[in-house]
């Protein structure tokens, strides 16, 4: 009886591990969606409110995912304290400190970093076009990633269950 319970527990643990890994894969994609949503909100703030960047980031922080919140709040605070002569320096620093550590797919950060090089410069149209361009880049990355994520999810779930079974066979 104990053997049976042990076997079930090992198989269940394997399944859970696989499930956990597949969730992480899905989170990778979700982070891309969160960044895209952030860009949409930023576009709205600039298009309809002509909101200055420090205020825009503060407003968006209240509406966006928990993971992006520290980055946006910190960025808004640093800008309001005039911590650097150039927006890009603050932007890059905050991405490195608050965004990079928890981003699973680092590729998502490339369009976000380069966005900081040209945002704030020239007129409203220029801002909107820059944001649209970053959104397109994000979409391209997400498109490439989608198939891979779907395959990986299945693979992790199957591998999890299979590894559980394999361990049981070896032990028995």
């Amino acid at each position, binding site marked *: 009886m104990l053997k049976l319970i042990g076997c079930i527990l090992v198989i269940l643990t394997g399944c859970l591990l696989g499930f956990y890994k597949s969730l992480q894969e899905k989170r990778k994609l979700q982070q891309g969606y969160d960044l895209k949503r952030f860009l949409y909100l930023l576009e709205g703030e600039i298009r309809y409110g002509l909101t200055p960047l420090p*205020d825009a980031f503060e407003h968006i922080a209240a509406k966006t995912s928990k993971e992006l919140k520290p980055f946006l709040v910190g960025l808004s605070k640093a800008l309001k304290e005039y911590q650097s*002569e150039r927006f890009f320096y603050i932007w890059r620093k905050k991405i490195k400190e608050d965004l990079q550590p928890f981003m699973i797919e680092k590729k998502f950060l490339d369009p976000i970093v380069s966005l900081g090089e040209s945002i704030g410069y020239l007129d*409203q149209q220029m801002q909107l076009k820059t944001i649209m361009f970053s959104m397109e880049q994000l979409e391209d990355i997400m498109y490439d990633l989608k198939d891979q994520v779907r395959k990986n999810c299945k693979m992790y779930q199957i591998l999890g269950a299979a590894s559980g079974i394999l361990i049981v066979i070896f032990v028995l």
Partner: protein
Amino acid sequence: MKEEIYELLPPKIKACFLNQRICAKDLQEIRFRLGQPIIIKYKNKEYFLSKCGGFSTDDQNLYELTQKEMRQVLEYISNYSLYAYEDQLKQGFITLKGGHRVGIAGKVVLDHEDIKTMQYITFLNIRIAHEIQGCGDKVFPLCRKNNKLLSVLIISPPGCGKTTLLRDLIRLGSSCGQTIGLVDERSEIAACYQGVPQNNIGIRTDVIDGCPKAQGFQMLVRSMSPDLVAVDEIGRKEDVDAIEYGLHCGCGVLATVHGNSMKTIPYYDRLKNLFQRFIFLDAKNQVGHVSKILDEEENQILC
């Protein structure tokens, strides 16, 4: 709170202001010109920033503003978001938190015949706003009849304290029971930050912020039923039309205009019939000095 203006200066220049203990309360303006000395107006006198970090009237060995510092000031005054001030740039100024105004000059970019934006901004003039509560105490009783504030036009050349006096008259009128609608086109009077007035403009004052005077005037008259509507720096035909419209609707008007005498103000023929008090300011002894007050018959009631 006026010290907040120092936060907008490049670190090296900011340090000079702080080390020299330049009191922001007495500071009137800071002028930046690319490659030229930094000039400040302090206690009604002009001073230069010297290379050794002090301020003096001597124009030798002066500190010159670099390209990098000009860019820094621009980034700071625009909150790293020059696009957010497009409309203000077209008019040649940016209003800062606290109501301070930054005059801007450089190369203008035209779209057909309209001003599109300004490029290569190389001249800046930071004018520090001074809220002086009580500066209208002396003239306020002379501008009232039956406990009601009359329509008042404040006339003076630039830099003589028109806006400061107007702000105090609004505060006094509002505190004495009259509902006042304020069209604050340049955010200089109420100095609204995210819609909340930073200056004391009384408890019965409604502010329409950043709106062109003529449109704001009509919106307030229609929606907020004010006893008086206040506007700063009138001078265009549509401003005078809006004032006439307001008066026909039964509202009084508090306004300011640039000029030296009655005859030099724009649309004199029309404006002289619209107001009951004309306050003249100059900077003879000090900024905000009331030189004379005329009534609707153009008789002097204070000189």
